[in-house]
């Protein structure tokens, strides 16, 4: 049996550590060779993309229909790529686990999409969007990629408008913009609170047009379970038809993963129920490096957990922080009181107190951590879950007094309605309760400037890759990146790879295909035959608790070591004791979940190792050992200005996880100067 049970305890927990040199994770990994991006041209940053587009070789239109491309995922990054490559005349096969491409979780994005159109003439530019994105990412992204993102952002708006995306408009008929996420220019385009939905429907319709044209074939309710690598090149996938259970082989000249983020490793997150890491993780196991997996974004304004039945968390737009004031009682004794009975003098508006200049508008990671701190102190509000109240008040009382109820309703009515529907409370009368939740992951598969992973022929777009957001993503930039990758970047870069195709014909008898199919089949068989005593969800929930506790808003050396041990034990137990009912030959939602949780159980360990290695605080990653005297995040550019690209290390005995290999890509900034953040 190969890649299943993993009982090996690799890293050495008894580590005796020269911590100040930034090698906390010694014993948990093997040092590897440095890695670098070889595709970004030299020269001024503003000319690199033009140069690359010119140098990337062209594929003759007549040859395109002989080239097959598999795209996994149909969100903004996958749907847009399928449409565009289909339009160009390639043969595209598109896969999603949902019943329609239109369901992908990009649809849930509320706020908007950034673009450097400078329609407001307020000093915005490609360079400023680039600058804000690199700074927001705490100087942990690759500058060439970010510059290109800012550059193509303007094309996205043109394309979407032409597709019929109904963006908000002013009375003169031109597009409206708003300021978002604390930036000082108005560059965010939006469609009420449903921007992701409207952009996704645009990409979906463009893709369906290509399905009708015969260039895109769509496979809904199909899940990629293995990557096929032949002679070092990605040549296809093994997928399971979720309705019939059939294990299928799909071969191609290139494979694109646009399969989204892995926030569901925390069990509770704002991701969709089905969002998972399996496509990325199977590719990682086949040689694709996973970069900065510990970089997660935790969003401060979500609706708190109400009990152990909770299946997911719901985000409310952080625009609420523009007018709402965040507080908890000064005294623990007041925490179970009706908030309306707590006088002003007994309330602690802690963000306004600690950060007088930014107040309630501090960046997401700071607001989140501050909420956790006051709850850890025992001053949280709302129902107790597992003995702790995890919530803080977001109070519109002052705003309603100042602006009037109608004005507040006009601005935030839909969010208030959503809150009322979920909690049964009326936020016009009693303060809302909020708590942070995992929302987005900046980490993902390592890609070069061409969005190609460390496996030739395997490309990665959107949230699934790591490249553009560094250690923290700005609001309204996820939609921008997904569409930039799919519409305007990948279609140009992939041709330089495909021009050498079509590659040698292979069929199902090829040993690499046989091996990949066997691996999928044996995992399915193992999961169904274990017949243990614990449900898949119970493992997932326990993993989520470990990750949230030790690899969430604040991480420490001791906590991460403990988490790694706990995850290894849990993973071992999972493979011995999981209970999955039903058969492989039909729709079996427990089996689907089991496969995903199995991969989360490996990813979680790597995230902790990555977090343990990075003994600095940057963006969404806060290490307790790396803070200023005031408790603010402290970066260490001298030691950690690199991308941590992890290669899967297989344990030779069990075939399970062994020591991962760390490849470092140094981050060099030529167009921007590195600075330490301050929001005091």
């Amino acid at each position, binding site marked *: 049996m190969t890649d299943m049970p993993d009982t090996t305890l690799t890293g050495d927990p008894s580590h005796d550590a020269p911590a100040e040199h930034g090698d906390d994770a010694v014993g948990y990994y093997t040092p590897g060779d440095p890695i670098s991006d070889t595709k970004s041209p030299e020269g001024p940053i503003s000319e690199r993309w033009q140069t690359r587009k010119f140098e990337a070789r062209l594929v003759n239109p007549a040859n395109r229909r002989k080239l097959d491309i598999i795209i996994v995922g149909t969100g903004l990054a996958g749907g847009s790529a399928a449409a565009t490559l289909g339009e160009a005349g390639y043969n595209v096969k598109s896969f999603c686990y949902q019943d329609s491409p239109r369901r992908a979780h990009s649809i849930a994005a509320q706020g908007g999409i950034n673009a450097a159109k400078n329609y407001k003439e307020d000093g915005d530019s490609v360079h400023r969007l680039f600058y804000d994105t690199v700074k927001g990412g705490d100087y942990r992204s690759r500058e060439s990629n970010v510059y290109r993102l800012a550059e193509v952002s303007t094309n996205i708006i043109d394309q979407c408008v032409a597709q019929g995306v*109904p963006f908000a408009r002013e009375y003169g008929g031109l597009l409206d913009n708003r300021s978002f996420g604390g930036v000082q220019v108005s560059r965010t385009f939006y469609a009420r609170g449903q921007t992701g939905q409207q952009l996704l429907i645009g990409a979906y*319709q*463009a893709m369906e047009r290509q399905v009708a044209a015969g260039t895109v074939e769509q496979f809904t309710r199909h899940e990629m379970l293995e990557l096929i690598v032949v002679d070092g090149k990605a040549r296809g996938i093994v997928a399971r038809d979720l309705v019939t259970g059939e294990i299928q082989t799909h071969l191609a000249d290139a494979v694109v993963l646009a399969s989204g983020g892995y926030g569901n490793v925390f069990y509770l997150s704002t991701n969709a129920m089905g969002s998972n890491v399996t496509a990325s993780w199977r590719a990682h196991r086949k040689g694709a490096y996973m970069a900065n997996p510990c970089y997660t974004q935790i969003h401060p304004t979500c609706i708190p957990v*109400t009990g152990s039945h909770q299946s997911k968390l719901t985000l409310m737009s952080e625009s609420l922080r523009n007018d709402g004031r965040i507080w908890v009682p000064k005294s623990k004794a007041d925490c179970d009181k009706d908030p309306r009975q707590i006088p002003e003098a007994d309330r602690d508006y802690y963000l306004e107190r600690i950060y007088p200049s930014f107040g309630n508008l501090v960046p997401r990671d700071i607001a989140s951590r501050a909420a956790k701190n006051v709850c850890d102190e025992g001053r949280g509000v709302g129902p107790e879950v597992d003995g702790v109240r995890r919530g803080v008040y977001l109070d519109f009382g002052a705003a309603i007094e100042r602006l009037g109820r109608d004005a507040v309703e006009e601005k935030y009515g839909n969010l208030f309605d959503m809150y009322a*529907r979920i909690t049964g409370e009326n936020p016009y009368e009693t303060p809302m309760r909020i708590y942070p939740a995992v929302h987005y992951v900046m980490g993902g598969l390592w890609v070069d400037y061409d969005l190609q992973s460390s496996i030739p022929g395997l490309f990665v777009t959107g949230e699934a890759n790591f490249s553009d957001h560094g250690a923290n993503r700005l609001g309204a930039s996820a939609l921008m990146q997904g569409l930039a990758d799919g519409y305007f970047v990948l279609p140009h870069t992939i041709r330089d790879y495909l021009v050498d195709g079509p590659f040698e014909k292979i069929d199902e008898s090829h040993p690499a295909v046989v091996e990949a199919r066997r691996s999928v089949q044996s995992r399915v068989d193992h999961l169904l035959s274990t017949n243990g005593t614990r449900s898949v969800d119970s493992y997932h929930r326990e993993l989520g608790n470990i990750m949230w506790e030790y690899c969430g808003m604040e991480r420490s050396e001791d906590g991460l070591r403990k988490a790694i041990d706990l995850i290894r034990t849990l993973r071992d137990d999972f493979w011995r004791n999981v209970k999955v009912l039903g058969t492989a030959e*039909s729709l079996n939602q427990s089996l689907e979940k089991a496969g995903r949780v199995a991969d989360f159980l490996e990813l979680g360990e790597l995230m902790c190792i990555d977090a343990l290695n990075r003994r600095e605080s940057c963006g969404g990653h806060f290490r307790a050992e790396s803070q200023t005297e005031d408790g603010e995040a402290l970066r260490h550019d001298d030691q950690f200005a690199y991308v941590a690209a992890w290669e899967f290390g297989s344990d030779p005995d069990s075939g399970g996880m062994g020591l991962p290999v760390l490849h470092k890509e140094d981050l060099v900034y030529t167009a921007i100067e590195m600075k330490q953040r301050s929001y005091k």
Partner: protein
Amino acid sequence: MKVTLKIWRQPDAASQGAMHTYELDGVSEDMSFLEMLDVLNEDLVARGEDPVAFDSDCREGICGMCGLMINGQAHGPEVTTTCQLHMRSFKDGDEIVIEPWRADAFPVVKDLVVDRGAFDRIIQAGGYISVNTGSAPEAHSVPVPRDDAVRAFNVATCIGCGACVAACPNGSASLFMGAKVTHLGELPQGQPERDSRVVGMVAQHDAEGFGGCTNIGECTAACPKEIPLDVISRLNWDLHAALRHGH
């Protein structure tokens, strides 16, 4: 609270289905309806019984994947999606009947899961604007009156869940089609293909086995996004115009 659930169980498309009864205790009013079913499924797994298959993904009311007939109403008693329905809409001792969407054009896959592929095929038949990536003009080159943009947006909020079809005595998808035809038809960018779009979509709709509209209005009453009935008038208007133009 304690509820009695009567749930449609059907192993696969080819088999006969039947209603099964389950008692569920310890339901909290803060649970969403689907979390209540999660709890039932955990119980079933513990007892060694096959859990109930149902669709859901975002669980925040926007992806359109979930959808159940609850006591005969599409998405249940509130104007929202099934995932946003909470157990506080029910009371202790209630009997709750749960069935899949009912429509010939949405065949049952298993238990409460249906196949809505017909909706994708209707969109493929014309529910788009033909503009290849990179060929779009500058976004501000065509101003769109604000009211038109708002009207387009209001109907573009359709989530493709299929409640309109499930609620309709005729199993018609006219509201779904009308929403798309109106969304694109309100915008200047949608004009060149306005005739071919409506003709193509309606032909596909009929070929899929959806029924015709007889202006009953159950669709709009069930719609979680409150798409108004007049999009169907717009659909008919556009169809007649297209036929008059010789399509």
